[in-house]
């Protein structure tokens, strides 16, 4: 017997759009603030990271619920749904790491400006 697996929550597409919006606004804000004050850029990055972590946790929750649903994998549509959510989760992780990378490279740029060296 084939069981229809349904997701009760935001669709993968909706989650992707929300995450992309948060990531783009976050990246622009952090990059902009890095030109002014690195400390504030770090705080802003932390804020956006928190939002993305919440979205990521929500998505992973859906993924686990989906994969542990009785009958999951009996149709190719289930698997496609699982792949869609996992792709969104990967995108969210990517955005989180990108914001962290911006702050880290921004810190190096600031050290360069300060001119702290071995001399």
């Amino acid at each position: 017997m084939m069981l229809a697996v349904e997701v009760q929550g935001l669709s993968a597409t909706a989650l992707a759009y929300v995450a992309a919006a948060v990531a783009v606004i976050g990246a622009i804000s952090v990059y902009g603030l890095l030109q002014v004050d690195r400390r504030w850029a770090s705080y802003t990055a932390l804020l956006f990271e928190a939002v993305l972590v919440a979205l990521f946790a929500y998505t992973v929750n859906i993924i686990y619920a989906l994969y542990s649903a009785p009958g999951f994998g009996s149709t190719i549509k289930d698997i496609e749904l699982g792949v869609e959510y996992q792709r969104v989760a990967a995108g969210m992780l990517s955005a989180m790491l990108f914001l962290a990378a911006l702050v880290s490279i921004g810190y190096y740029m600031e050290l360069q400006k300060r001119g702290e060296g071995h001399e």
Partner: protein
Amino acid sequence: MRALVRLWELILERFHLKEFLEHPVPRYSNLNPLYWLGDVAAMSFFILAITGFALALLYTPGLSLTKTPPDPLLGHLGNEVYDATQSYSSVYKITYLTPLGFILRQIHLWSAYMMIFATLTHFFAKFILGSYKRRGGGALWLLGVFLGFLTINQAVLGYILPLHLDGILAIQIGLNLFRYFDYFGIPVGQLVLSVLGSLFVTDQVIKMIYVLHILVVPAIILVLLGLKINGILYGGVSPPPIKDEELRRRAMEEKEPFYPHRFALTVGQLLLQLSVILLLAAMTPLPLLEPWVPGQQVPAGVRPPWPVMWYYTYVKMIDPFISVGLPIFLVLFALVVPLLDRRGGVSIEERWIWVAIAIVYIAIIGYGTVLGFLVDIPKEITPLTRISVPPDYAVPYIGTPQAVGP
């Protein structure tokens, strides 16, 4: 917060990490992207080791046949099932039936591609910079060539493991490369076949490939990588490609401490690299491809992935005697480059001939890769019979698929 800072300082002091972390690094190497590519390759290796560990827990090598649904990323929508090997079906389970398994496999695949790309670009960057000319540079160059060779080997071995049609094409082409030596009366192909025990994939062969992929080759890479990092740490990075001696000396004397300068940059680079890998996994996920059934011939139209596409193109385009030997020639030539390019400085205008040779190198690989994707070269694929029969002195020689040994 203050307690944490004190704890951090205590760790640095008691473990003598301060000496390591504060070692001076030339500023030009932090700012010039040509000096970051080796880091990208090394980081990719560690990402591969971590994801590979998790994948190894879930993967089961084997040839016994099971029923497996089709790969959804290849656009199949029906509910039909196919015969596939245990290896294929275990990779299928990891990718499509395990939560977060899809992300895990995609990170592993994209990191592998990134490692190969970084290795190739790092090789060309160091070729152009003439980094083998400094004291100790030749040894590091030699280690680099071995590491590059092992990286490609590792990629091919990993590509075989899911036992999809492309993987079988990879093992056939790989065996063909070894058979090339039989031309010259060196029975390398015969030796490899004796070690494997077969000229086609069996349970033993796939287990051997698995062990080579997860243990033997990574262990060798780790040791060589350690030697290389040690050499760079104590011997320094390549000098800048500046002709003016005074300017070059000044650039080399301008230094920054590794921590926090280069450390911040390296952490940023690692995070950026992971971010790119995950973005590629999300935007352009790689499918599992069609399963292979023991005894099945690789049909025409199956093509290798981009890192070896250039080689595949040449094998199909030109005389096998030249094309099959091409990678062997490229590796051997790379090994002797430090012995040939000894005169002059390190600036590009002083060694333009070697820069031109490096460009020819890039052109050979780039041309074959692009052509392979653009044109479907119509020569029939017969990987095991592509090389014409070797001379009589290259015996004993196995020409038809049959098991060797008990």
